[in-house]
């Protein structure tokens, strides 16, 4: 990967194409997780690679290429979702859930780790995009708060607040409380 990055930085187009080939599925996965939509994910991925191509000179190599690409993808997704929110504001309203608040009460299924992953994916998709972006970047891709805040154009404290809210919502969906129990959000 390092050799490919170096060659691409020297203007080798074939090397950059090879970088795209070896990373685009992961980049698409991240874009899909951030946008929750296949078409949006495709747009975000194309924009991300275009920015990466134009900004390759600025990649200093002190982080992994994939991490650098994640940052660009997160930034593109935030821009894309921001643009979309101006057209379809209702979709980004943080109070809109969209999915079943208690997707599964079946104790048999709950015991299964694969099922937990499935329910987690559904719960992630049901999160408002602003919350989903932070929890995906932090808890799935392990980006630091500082980086997340920078790429999403928010303060570090706002990123932490969103992360807390996102984790709470996910936990509430995955481990619903029995009747009579209260939970602060």
């Amino acid at each position, binding site marked *: 990967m390092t050799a490919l990055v170096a060659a691409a930085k020297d203007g080798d187009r074939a090397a950059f194409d090879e970088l795209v080939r070896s990373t685009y599925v992961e980049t698409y996965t991240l874009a899909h997780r951030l946008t929750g939509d296949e078409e949006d994910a495709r747009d975000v991925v194309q924009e991300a690679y275009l920015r990466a191509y134009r900004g390759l000179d600025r990649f200093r190599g002190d982080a992994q290429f994939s991490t650098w690409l994640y940052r660009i993808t997160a930034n593109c997704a935030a821009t894309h979702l921001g643009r979309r929110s101006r057209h379809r504001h209702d979709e980004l309203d943080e109070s809109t859930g969209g999915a079943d608040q208690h997707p599964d009460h079946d104790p048999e299924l709950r015991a299964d780790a694969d099922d937990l*992953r499935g329910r*987690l994916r559904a719960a992630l998709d049901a999160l408002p995009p602003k919350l989903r972006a932070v929890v995906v970047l932090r808890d799935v891709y392990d980006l630091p708060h500082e980086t997340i805040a920078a790429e999403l154009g928010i303060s570090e404290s706002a990123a932490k607040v969103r992360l*807390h809210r996102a984790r*709470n919502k996910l936990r509430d969906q995955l481990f619903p409380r029995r009747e009579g129990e209260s939970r*602060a959000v």
Partner: protein
Amino acid sequence: MQCEDLSGALAATAGGDGTLTRAERRHVERCLRCQAEVVQYRKLLRTLRTLRTDVLEPAPGLLADILATIEQAGERQAVRSVLSGRRIAYLGGLAAATAAGAAGALVYATRTRRARLAG
């Protein structure tokens, strides 16, 4: 101390982003509800981390679209650099012509002045 007050701290601790104060720790040690919450957060975060290796296969054609976008950008960049190269050459030629003209005018003025003094 109320369990609700600890929710954020428990999530942060489970995620390795924070630590509990001594008083909070004492509360959790005695509170089954908070202990269950920590377990849930740990399970949630562990499952979230496993999604990292869980890739989604894009619909066919995405790779070709990306490469085509890059190709177009590369061509535009090349055209721009050729144009800016021509612009530099044009400006360089213009500057050289201006300098030559100025030098010629200076020589002419000097000769005219000498001829006038001699005459």
